[in-house]
């Protein structure tokens, strides 16, 4: 005899497929939806379906969007001479929160990671090269993560772009604001020293 009625068991199974959700959490979520009004459950189902059906990749920058091109690529007010290269679409949100950057973006869809089977062919580099050849781009800011994979990707991309005569810069790496130098490890401190600037 099954522990739960078939529809609930199926719902729990679906929740369990989501990252970070185990059996107990899946049960809690399923029972929360059962207790909630039907409109709440239907609204959730609708938003999942809409997100899945309407969201796609921007044909220019590979950002996720509901309109192609995305709002950054379509905007007339953004600076078209600068492109910031990021690993994933959610990295754009972190940069947009600064409200200082007004250029365009290019999403690579990951970083070079041989152990994960991600090589240069798996990254969306061809579109970036096309944009550099055809557009008024003067500078590329590489904003990949400051990890081994991110650094390798940054160096690879810069080697690819420099022959095109475009300025290539890397975001600063070092001590985070609000932390204490005492707790910085050697590599973080070294990067901070390398990236020092005139005052």
């Amino acid at each position, binding site marked *: 005899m099954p522990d739960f009625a078939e529809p609930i068991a199926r719902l729990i199974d679906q929740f369990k497929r989501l990252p*970070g959700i185990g059996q107990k959490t899946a049960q809690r979520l399923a029972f929360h939806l059962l207790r909630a009004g039907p409109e709440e459950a239907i609204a959730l189902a609708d938003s999942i379906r809409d997100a899945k059906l309407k969201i796609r990749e921007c044909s220019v920058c590979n950002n996720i969007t509901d309109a192609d091109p995305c709002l950054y690529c379509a905007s007339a007010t953004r600076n078209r001479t600068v492109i910031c290269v990021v690993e994933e679409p959610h990295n754009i949100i972190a940069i947009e929160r600064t409200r200082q950057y007004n250029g365009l973006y290019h999403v690579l869809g990951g970083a*070079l*990671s*041989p*152990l994960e*089977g991600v*090589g*240069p062919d798996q990254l969306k580099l061809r579109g970036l090269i096309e944009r550099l050849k055809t557009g008024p781009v003067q500078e590329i800011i590489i904003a990949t993560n400051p*990890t*081994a*994979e991110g*650094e*390798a990707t*940054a*160096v*690879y991309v810069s080697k690819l772009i420099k022959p095109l005569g475009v300025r290539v810069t890397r975001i600063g790496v070092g001590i*985070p604001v*609000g*932390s204490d130098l005492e*707790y*910085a*490890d*050697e*590599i*973080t401190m070294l990067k901070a020293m390398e990236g020092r600037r005139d005052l």
Partner: protein
Amino acid sequence: MRGSLRCDNYIHLRFAARVRWVLTVGAPTTSMPVRESEALILRSFPLGEADRLVSFLSRSEGRMRGVASGARRTKSRFGSTLEPFSYVRMWFYERQTRELVRINQCELIESFLEAQRDYAVSLAFALVSEVTEAVLGEHEVAEPNFRLLLVIARAIKAGAKLPLPLAYFAFWIVRLGGWMPALDRCSRCGADVHNARASMARSGLFCPNCTLPGQRTISQEALQLARRMASEKLERLMKANFATAAIDDVKDHMLNLVEQHIEKKLQTRKMTADEPGQLK
């Protein structure tokens, strides 16, 4: 009624005995002593909201996996210590019922992060990491493998051309695994193969008479290099000049042996083959 009283008395006596035992012996603890060991980080994956699942080779405990809480946060106390091939002093504890250890703290001893900025070098490190993970079981103490990884990483960091350290690594990983055939005689008939055209397979080295169809030959230069690898340090071999074909031959045959023993193809090996630059 009498039964109930007897039951209450029994529980009372049991409880009193337990209290006496705790007072005299001490509370039953599930203590988790923090262990300290030198370790090399093999790879790490994002886990949950901001954690990392880290695979590492401990000098004293062997290959292990652990969780570093909050390691992906900007102000993480782990900093760059969990990057691939970081040589660290690590403090961790494990619970008997859990497969993963919990990583408390890491102190950087030596970093190989700068060397990995080059894609070809990062591919080489990835190959070393994948092979190590594949051949070593968890909690299997492997101090010689630990020293081998350090030697290889330091040679690459010092700027050595990649093929020789990789071939040396592949040779010694096979030797430490106990899969190395005799390099001077035929495995079937015992004939001397010092000056003969030999072939190598999982079951050993074969002279021309015993070679079966389809077995891949190994050059005499490659065999000589392999014999030298068995007795000489990498830094000494790097000063000598070896033909690229011989180095590639040793590496390919050794990686073939590794793949035959782990019964799967190495993912990074194919990627290194596709990389036309420094890896060939």
